[in-house]
């Protein structure tokens, strides 16, 4: 049954996602989802309704870049398998771990309308945020093996994932003809989460001893996960099990209740300097979830030294290596003292900060410059985006641009929307690779993106009402002149 639930959730995520919208959507006013990036920005429609099941959005962000896995030296290309490969270059990038960050969202209900004074939006979403990092120690091991004196840091190994409900209400209002302000408040209710937080997790190798030191914990709030303690108070890992899900459990998973509560806020503004220039900024997903239910947290704090199998020479012929290995495991467990607790913990969302400027030389063309900062655990990602946004016809919009990520890759953004009467179809994508390489490995060649392997794509279907103009003024006054 648990598998069925996961399948249902995954299916919903795949069909109606709205969580992490592409950058390319920021200046595309005629797609209502633009307000997700800046709640002050009002779509060019008096109202809209996002059709559930017809919006797909998926983002995969990573600090792993293809080109860094090939190094040239004196005209010869080397892979990480070769001893000429210099790991220090990629280790600098992976000092906080080799990160992969998939995010998806499920829009169950999303609509908005222009009121008498402002623009209202309502959303009910299911969201998944995750941040997974391989420890840099893996690359250290590949680089140097396990030479004596090597200290491998596994503390940057990270799994931080959460699934939660989001109910939001947003409002945007033009305070003056130049300044529009907007906010969106979100009530969050967690479904499940897992979070690792290790202050220390070092393995030091040597001839005389191997030392393992760890301090930290794994915090979970997973429905129906049961864990128990042994008589000595340590975690009984063998007892880990899932209770069979019952109908009420499924209802609890799918319908937001007051357990695992959280809140977040989006806010922003848009300042129109004159008819050609505007400036805007926003903060989204500033909030957290407090996990209070179905808690199972494992904390470790200790150190273990392995100085070899302990043998009494008199009994050397009767050594049971299986038993000896079990004893080592038992010793590690005893020294690390993994204890079980029901401690409440919190997970922050990944807040985004957008700062943008737009230049509209002609009424159907907007040139946008946008900065996006996403704050992650102990690190951040930074993108700069330059875009051309065209509205040549009322039925068709087009955008293209370039994105520069400070980790060193340049990519293209691309998107379009097609309005067929009140039906709107759109597709926006970020991180389209602009540089490719043919990678030829011992005769087998294939063309691959040079830099980025990131993906952020959104395809959707909306019902647009009143797209021809604002309630009190025309939406676009120059289509006829185009």
């Amino acid at each position, binding site marked *: 049954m648990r598998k069925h639930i996961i399948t249902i959730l995954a299916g919903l995520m795949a069909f109606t996602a709205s969580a992490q919208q592409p950058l390319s959507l920021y200046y595309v006013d005629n797609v209502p989802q633009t307000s997700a990036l800046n709640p002050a920005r009002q779509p060019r429609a008096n109202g809209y309704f996002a059709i559930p099941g017809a919006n797909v959005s998926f983002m995969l962000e990573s600090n792993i870049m293809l080109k860094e896995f090939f190094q040239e030296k004196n005209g010869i290309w080397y892979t990480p398998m070769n001893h000429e490969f210099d790991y220090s270059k990629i280790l600098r990038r992976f000092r906080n771990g080799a990160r992969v960050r998939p995010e998806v969202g499920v829009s169950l209900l999303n609509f908005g309308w222009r009121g008498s004074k402002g623009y209202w939006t309502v959303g009910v979403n299911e969201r998944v945020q995750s941040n997974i990092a391989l420890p840099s120690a893996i690359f250290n091991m590949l680089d140097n093996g396990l030479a004596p004196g*090597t200290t491998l840091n596994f503390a940057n190994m990270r799994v931080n994932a959460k699934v939660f409900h989001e109910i939001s209400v947003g409002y945007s209002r033009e305070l003056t003809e130049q300044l529009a302000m907007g906010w969106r408040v979100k009530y969050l209710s967690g479904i499940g989460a897992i979070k690792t937080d290790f202050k220390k997790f070092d393995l030091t190798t040597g001839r005389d001893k191997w030392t393992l030191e760890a301090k930290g914990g794994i915090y979970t709030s997973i429905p129906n996960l049961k864990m128990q303690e042994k008589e000595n108070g340590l975690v009984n890992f063998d007892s880990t099990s899932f209770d069979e899900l019952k109908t009420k459990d499924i209802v609890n998973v799918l319908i937001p209740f007051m357990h695992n509560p959280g809140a977040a806020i989006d806010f922003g503004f848009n300042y129109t300097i004159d008819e050609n220039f505007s400036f805007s900024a926003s903060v989204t997903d500033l909030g957290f979830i407090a996990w209070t239910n179905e808690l199972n947290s494992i904390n470790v704090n200790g150190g273990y030294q392995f100085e*070899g199998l302990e043998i009494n020479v008199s009994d050397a012929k009767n050594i049971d290596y299986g038993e000896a290995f079990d004893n080592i495991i038992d010793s590690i467990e005893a020294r690390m003292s993994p204890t079980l607790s029901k401690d409440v913990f919190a997970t922050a969302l990944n807040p985004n900060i957008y700062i943008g400027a737009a230049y509209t030389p002609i009424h159907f063309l907007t040139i946008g410059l946008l900065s996006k900062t996403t704050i992650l655990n102990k690190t951040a990602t930074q993108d700069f985006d330059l875009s051309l946004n065209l509205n040549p016809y009322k039925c068709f919009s087009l955008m293209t641009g370039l994105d520069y990520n400070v980790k060193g890759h340049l990519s293209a953004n691309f998107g379009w929307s097609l309005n067929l009467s009140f039906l709107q179809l759109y597709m926006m994508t970020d991180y389209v690779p602009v*540089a490719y390489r043919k990678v030829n490995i011992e005769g087998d060649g294939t063309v691959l993106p040079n830099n980025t392997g990131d993906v952020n794509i959104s395809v959707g279907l909306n019902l647009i009402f009143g797209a021809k103009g604002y309630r009190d003024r025309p939406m676009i006054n120059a289509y006829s002149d185009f």
Partner: protein
Amino acid sequence: MKKIRTISLLIAGALTMAACMKDEIKVEDTTYNRSLNFAAPIFTATADYTTILNSLSDKSQHESIIYADDEGRLYLEYTTKYHVKWNSILNIDTYNNQYVTPVLTKAGTAVNQKFEFRHKLNSDNTTRIDSMIISSATLKLEASALPISGTAIMTLDELTINGKGLSTSWELSEGMKQNIDLSGYLLKPKHSSDSSYTNCKIRFVGEGTANAMNEFNFKVEMSDVIPQVAFGFFGQNEVFNEAGIQHMGFFSEYRVPRTIKMKGMHINLNVENHTGTAFNLQMADMRIVCADNNETIPVHFLDSNNIYVNQISYKDFLADGLSKPKSNQYMLDSTNSNADEILNSSPLDFEYTLKIESNPQGEVQENFITPETQLDATVDIFIPFYFSVYDLNRCDTFNFNFNDLILDSDNSKYVDKLIIAMKFSNGFPFSFVTQGYLVDENYNVVDSLFTGQEKLWKMPEFDSNLRVTKRGDLETDIVFDSAKIERCSKGNPIYLILNTTVSTQDMPDKYFMLYENYGLDMRLAIELVGKYKSE
């Protein structure tokens, strides 16, 4: 339309300019040849004295019992105990006699006849029993019938209870058969020059009923006599004479090489006398049978091998019971015997004859005996682990397929250097040097572990009593460089021959005691330096 075209071209141009094809990455060599560096401890081992001793034996199970004294000194002890009980010291010749006497009867004629039978109680002529309080005994009497109308009366005046002598009577015409319980009776025999005896008196009173020459049969037996206490002089007798063999299993289980010299063995004969009789003990015909060749070596004891133990007095016995026996011992050691010689001959059996004689000095004091009192003699062989080792050399061959165990032959080419790191912390009072040879199936030496004999166990530090005060720590690396690895890879050694030499300090003059807490800690680690090279 012109504007549309212009803008479209601008967009297409921007995309075209943005997208480009970088130089081809052409990877010719996908060989995996990264570092194989690895270092890890493999095991820590501890060895105690049993490990050292077991190295001298082929057996996996050992029966020898090794003891430690209060200071932790280790020793072997083999003990044989002998007990001489009261009935070996005092032999009472119980009655078991049958007397036949003719009796002439005439009908109607009165009969008045007396008989007297003497019963000797001492089984040997030197024993004299002065008195005895009987704890338990049964007097069995049987008399035949006679043609006499009247009674017979039997009296034993030497057996009294409450001051009255033992007396019984029966009808002569019917005969008699009866058992008399003698518990509590006081026996005070009469004495002659060679015996302690009792007189049994029988008198017939009656009238004959037939004319006949009759036989009067009288049987008397005193059985199951246990004295509560007996006094007298119990003779000069050999109360014990038995061959003894003490098997010393240690030397059959552990083949102690001749290069290990031991000393300090002593053989004790301890005696504790709880009786009221003095004794002389003698261990005669002492000899050792060697484990090596079953050769017999006589034990030369320079002192007298007799030991006298006095008796306890009855007064002391009443006061102290069995708690204060008279005791004596003699010790056979290197000062008065060839003990060191026999100890270093791998003694297997200690053979002897133990003889015990009572009252060796004659009648000096009245003897007494009770059922609880006995003589206890103990033959105790004490062998301390006190030794000196002079170049004890061992050569052991182990199955050791180097290429299979250490480096798979296919992978050996990836290893530039292999270090087997050993660290010994030696608490035993000897050093250990070794050389190992890796040999092929024909025992041709492929390579050696070291350039020469390498010391692995460093001599510890000692106090003035030659007791270890600080362990000797030593780290030794066995380095297999690429050249040695290649030799081993090609030579395919399958055996490891370890040639080791063990010596104590300043041998052979100094001897060292083995203590219970002596031990050895060993750590073994490996370090590998190399590059993995995939094909």
